[in-house]
Structures are given as C-alpha cells and as structure tokens.
C-alpha cells in the first residue's frame, strides 16, 4: 500500500520533466499526431520515424502541461525506440503506467496516459492506411 504522502514527483519523473528525452521535432517524421486534455490544458504531439522493417527508429515529442504528462511523454519516447509497430500494438496502458514507476490517482493517470493515447491513435490510423490483406 503506497504512502499517501509520497509525492509522485520523485527523481525519475522530475528528471524527465526537466531534461526531457527527445523533446522537439523530426525533420521528416513518418507519422505524427497531437492530442490535448482541454480540461486541464495538457497537450502532447508525438512524431515517429519508422524504418523499412516497421521498427521505430526515432521518437520525438513536444507539448506543454503538467509534469506528469510531459515526463510520461519523455519516458514513452525513450522506451519505444527500437520496438516494432506490432510490439507497440501489444503495448498496454497498464505497462505505460508501470514505466512511470510511481502510483497515480485516477485523475492523474489521465495525464500520465495522454502521450500513450496519442501513440495508440497514431498506430491505429497507420493500420487503417495499410492495404487490406488479399483473401482467398
């Protein structure tokens, strides 16, 4: 049972917030998507460079908002580089929250999952763009 006084703002989150991994833009991203949580003003854009083997070569993010949302985006980019699109399709919200290493209340989980949601939406539309497999 977590200590309710324990701040989620341990070094892991704060380091990513203050020195984010790959915060910025790719010159020629394969795909990009943005989303925001209008209730609180958190906003995230994620850009991916995907190679010919459907593997994420580089992941960048940009955005503004609370420390949890921005740190989560940085942590996400760091962890998805090198993974294939298929692996990312299997990536669950629970695993994303585990990457943050700190327990979050339901409302803060929304902040922590914003970049995850952006990634998932992007993967879904990439899927839609691919040719359907031939039948028979």
């Amino acid at each position, binding site marked *: 049972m977590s200590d*309710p006084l324990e701040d989620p703002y341990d070094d892991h989150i704060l380091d990513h917030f203050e020195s984010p991994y790959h915060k910025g833009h790719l010159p020629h991203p394969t795909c990009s998507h943005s989303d925001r949580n209008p*209730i609180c003003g958190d906003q995230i854009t994620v850009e991916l460079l995907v190679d010919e083997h459907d593997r994420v070569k580089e992941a960048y993010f940009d955005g503004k908002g*609370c420390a*949890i949302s921005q740190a989560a985006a940085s942590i996400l980019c760091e962890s998805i580089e090198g993974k294939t699109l298929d692996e990312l399709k299997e990536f669950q919200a629970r695993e994303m929250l585990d990457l943050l290493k700190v327990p979050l209340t339901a409302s803060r989980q929304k902040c922590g999952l914003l970049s995850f949601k952006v990634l998932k939406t992007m993967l879904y539309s990439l899927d839609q763009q691919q040719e359907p497999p031939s039948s028979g």
Partner: protein
Amino acid sequence: MTVTVPEFDVEAVRRDFPILQQRLAGDLPLVYLDTAATAQKPRAVISKIVECYEQYNSNVHRGIHQLGDRMTTELESAREKVQQFIGAGEADEIVFTSGTTMSLNMVAHGWGRKFLRPGDEILLNPMEHHANLVPWQLAAAATGATLKYLPLTSDGRLDLDRLDELLTRRTKLVAVTAMSNVLGTINPIETLARRAHDVGALICVDGAQSVPHMVTNVRSPQIDFLAFSGHKLYGPTGIGVLYARRQLLESMDPFLAGGHMIREVYLDSSTWADPPAKFEAGTAAFIEAVGLGAAIDYVQSLGLPRLGAYEHSLLVYAHEQLQQIPGVKIHGPGVEHKGAILSLTVDGVHPHDLSDILDRRGVAIRAGHHCTMPLHEFFNLTATARASLAFYNTRQEVDALAEGLQRARKVFRMK
C-alpha cells in the same frame, strides 16, 4: 496593509460542520479551500434533510394526507425563506430549479428564444462561467441575435469605459456574473442594471458565487433575472433558484413540460399554471428545497454581513501571505474589488502538479480552467490553481496553503 480581524469565533462555527472534524490519511487535518466548487454543510442542514426522510417524506402539492400537507408546508416555507434572503417582492417570483445552470438555461430558452429577434444583441463579457455563456450562444444561433463582449481590464474587471459603445438600444439583455468564480471580481451590478434599463435592456445575473457571500437585494438595484445554486450556499446539491420579476415569468415560455406546470390538459393542447408552478414541471426536489431553506436559516442566524467581513479579512491575509512567495501570481483585481477567491499560478509548477502536492498535505484546491475557457484565453493562461475561502476557514489553513506552495516550489527545484 494591516486589517483588524473582526471578532468571529471560527472554531465554534467549524464544530457545526461534521466533515471538517475528520483527519485524513497520515493524520492530516482536512484543509478545505474549494467552497467555490461546492460548500460544506452544517449539521442543521443535514439534520433537516434526515428529518424530512424520517418523519414526513411524501409528495408535495398533490396529496391530501397529513404527511403531504406537512411536506408542502415545509417546501413553501423554504420558498419564502429564499424570497426574504434575496429581497424579492413575492414568493411566487422564486422558482426552484436544479441549479444555476438550469436557471440560466430556462431564461435563455423561455425568454431568449421567445423574444430575441435578428439584429438584437446580448451583452456578455469574457469572465463569464460557461453556464452564462453557452446558453446565450445557443439562443443567439436559434434567433439570429448577436453576442457582444464587454472587454476586461488587465486586472480582471469589466472595462466600463467601453460600455457606452457596446450597450446600445440594440441590446436586449446584459448577462453578467455578480462575482467571478475564478478572479473573485465583484462586478458593479447596480451600474450595469441602471445602464441596461436606460437602453431598454434586461439584466440577467449569475449569482452562484455572490449570493452565498454578499447580501443580495433583487429590488435595489432592480434585477430582472437572478440564478444561484443551493450547494454553494451550504445546502444540498440538486437544487437552485431562478428569480425573475413576475411580469417576466408570466410572459416567458416554460422550459420543461409535464405535470404540475399545467392548468388544463386537452388532447391537443394545454394551458399553463401560474408561476412559479409554470416552471416547476414534474416532482420538485422538495427535500433538497427544504434543505436549502435550512441552509438559509443557518446563514441568517450567523448574519451574512458578519460572515462576509470575516471572509474578507481572511482574503486580505491570504493575499499578504501568498504574494510574498517568489513566483506566485494571484490573478485578478486587488482585494477591494473581489470576493474570497484566489486563482493563482506558480512559475515552473503546473496547476495540476500544485494541486496534487497540496492534496498530499490535506489541502484541497482546484486546478484547471474552472469552466471559464474564454477567461483563461483572455489572460493567455492554460490553467490556474484556485483556492476559495468560506467562513469556516482559518488563518492557519491559509498558512497551510502557503506552506504547500513553498513545498511545491522546492519539489520542482525552483529558487
């Protein structure tokens, strides 16, 4: 600025509020600074509601039996209490609704959609809560009327220098909050009412924040429509009030239709009951209305002017303490122009994170845009952290807020 704290036994008053007696996890006291979102309830209100349910709960108006008679008497007594509380001329000018939002929608629908014509103007301003903006957007879209916005000054007050230009004979309604739920700004309702009537316009006042904290008198200045909620007035949720002058209630269209609001029902048509019944379709939230009456009794027993004076002294103390913290900015006007609401930003700490860190120390505030996206846009803010004070808060609680802000700055390594 030194302020003499008026004599007010806040500890005695706090004992009236059961929820304030608890300790949170970690044996922390609850520091509740979110009354603008919803107020805590005194035992007198809770007990009255329990008494209704335990002793005479039964449907109102229609029953002949003694329980129904008692319940109806209590309901209509609550209506009179509201009438006296806001200085209305008749109890029939008090319509019970589900809250401020419902009340404002009723005006936009029953008055706005019926009487607005293309070319008519509604004067609003950017500090309004969405409840006093969005219904007017819909009414304007439906009728061809236009929305005009009175700009704000840099310190979050209405720019009255622009009033002549924007309040004209084309204006049919001025919709304005008496107290901003974000900035705390107290608007000059007297001036606006007079100027509106001079050009033949009506004035519709959002009283959600003002009615619980300042004395309201709808006949001086003459207010045409007033909306407020029970749950911000130390009463239950699910109940609010629309006050409107009798003549307006008689000419407006009803909002919801069904039982109780009719006089006669034929197969093809119906006639309406007199106000307030005309606007109270269905089964009233009668228990909640009685709870609201009990809340008004409680506030009146302490004296609203006295409570307001104490809250103001607490506000002044809060401004003094918080403005000393580097990087803290309290948005809006100086203390002489506002009620006890403080919306602030802290350099380098997002309001969400601020709210989270404070919560872990038992301090409850609110973060976000507080249903005022245009206001935040006007001041180029994505979000603010809002602390709101009531007469059950203390100087020690303001200190806890200040300490929490200092802690947040440390966590985020701000110098």
